[in-house]
């Protein structure tokens, strides 16, 4: 199956902005939780982390990533790999997210 022209990394990342970390109340992309993202032949491969291991919201966030990804046109599957190295820190946030939380570089 060929990948639709619009289905690329940027398109998927844009869609994942709609998935939030409920505790921090901010989207997972700008929080810096997405470590890697590839799109190949309609399959989205996400490598991501959580703000802390054992987070009770982990499965809900993973489910959110899957549901948002699989809803995109042309997507056949979404695979998610959760990693803990390197550990997440607030420094991984985008400047916009840092500004939201009042974090200085």
């Amino acid at each position, binding site marked *: 199956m060929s990948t639709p022209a619009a289905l690329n990394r940027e398109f998927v990342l844009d869609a994942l902005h709609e*998935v939030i970390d409920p505790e921090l109340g901010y989207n997972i992309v700008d929080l810096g939780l997405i470590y890697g993202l590839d799109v190949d032949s309609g399959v989205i491969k996400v490598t991501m982390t959580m703000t802390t291991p054992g*987070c009770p919201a982990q499965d809900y966030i993973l489910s*959110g990533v899957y549901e948002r990804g699989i809803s995109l046109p042309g997507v056949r599957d979404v695979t998610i790999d959760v990693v803990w190295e390197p550990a997440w820190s607030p420094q991984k946030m985008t400047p916009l997210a840092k500004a939201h*939380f009042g974090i200085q570089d």
Partner: protein
Amino acid sequence: MVTLANRVSRWTLPAFALALVNFLLAEALILAGLTWPARSVSAPGTLAAVHLLVIGWLLLLMLGALFQFVPVITARALASQRLALLTLLAIEAGLAAMVGGFLAIGRHPALALALPAGGTAVLLGVLLAIFNLGVPLFGARPLALPGRMVLSGLAFLLVTVALGLSFALAFTVPPLAPYLAVLLYAVGDHALAGLGGWFTLTAMGVSYKLLPMFMLAPEERGVAGECVHVLGAGGFALAVGAGLARVWVAAEALRVAQDSGYMAIAIAVMIYLWDIVRIYRTRKRALIEAHNRAAAGAFGFLGLAAALAIGFAATHRLGAGAPLIIFLVVFGWLGGLGLTQLYKIIPFLTWLTRYGSNLGRGAVPRVQDLVRERRSYPWFALYFLGVLLGAACVLAGHAGGLRPSLALVTLATVGLLIEYWRAWRGHYAHGRRDASAPPSFVSNQRG
């Protein structure tokens, strides 16, 4: 497809609900004048209120929190969700029997057996909880500091409940009656093991994980955290152990050991408070949420209780000052920390159970959308003001002023309870009282 594994403790919110009801019942007993200071510290009403506070309110609050918190720090599930339910049932039923037994003292001798029966049920509930929490804790060794502090706290919980049960047996089983007078000397050790070794050590351990997590501060506590744990656990063990031994053996060495334990506890509390200030100061999150702002009041009361305890000990008035210190620890430190943290935990668990499965499929609110923080601040302020006024009255020798002060505390408790209820019902998220309808807005920020 991602399967939603059960990472949410099913019985944590019911435990909080029961705990809050018990807290209100205890406050009602005090306001009705059935307890100290209107009656003696050993009056039936006082004993009933004290156990409603420490078992009904604080124990259920802490166990409910640990049923959710221990899987977070160990990344392992509880041994059984069903055991968590049995724990709640055993403790609440046991507490009801104990309160009935206390209130029947001197009036209905036939109900006297309710005390050891209730105590046994509470002990059973506690043993179930220790097993349920111990399985993930032992499975996740080597544990980080918060886990080790919780483990130490659970050991003190066992000692506390065992001591309590021995009091109940001596009180009601005639052949054991001669030991009652001796055992009563250990009531202080019972309180120290419970309020200090169990509640305070555990609360410190939990706060060492949650505060940095919520405020985006460094989690590693280094030497300071280790000192708090070693000095705290060692100090409580020494003070309680030597205190119990002194009930049977009059030895100068035991008194020195007991005083050394008190000193170690005081140092541990001071280091802990300094470390908490460090967490607040090194946080990355400039704008912190209401529960963390208000928690500063609870930390302040821990410091005040410790300072007064040191002052009373230095002037050899520790026994006379004990009711005030217990009041500050129960209402100011532990109660204050509990009420402030519930303001975050209840909306968070509500979000997980009510909205979590919609994430990625449509509009969902944020946890922050489930509360109106500005409405909580007057209640937190009133609560801590009431505790402070009550403590000031007792310290000034006007213990009668405690009841009016407790009226403020009770009013604030009711106010906060309404806010918790609104968060759970999705009152603010939906902008209307009907919480059954899905939220009608998207709250995701875009970078």
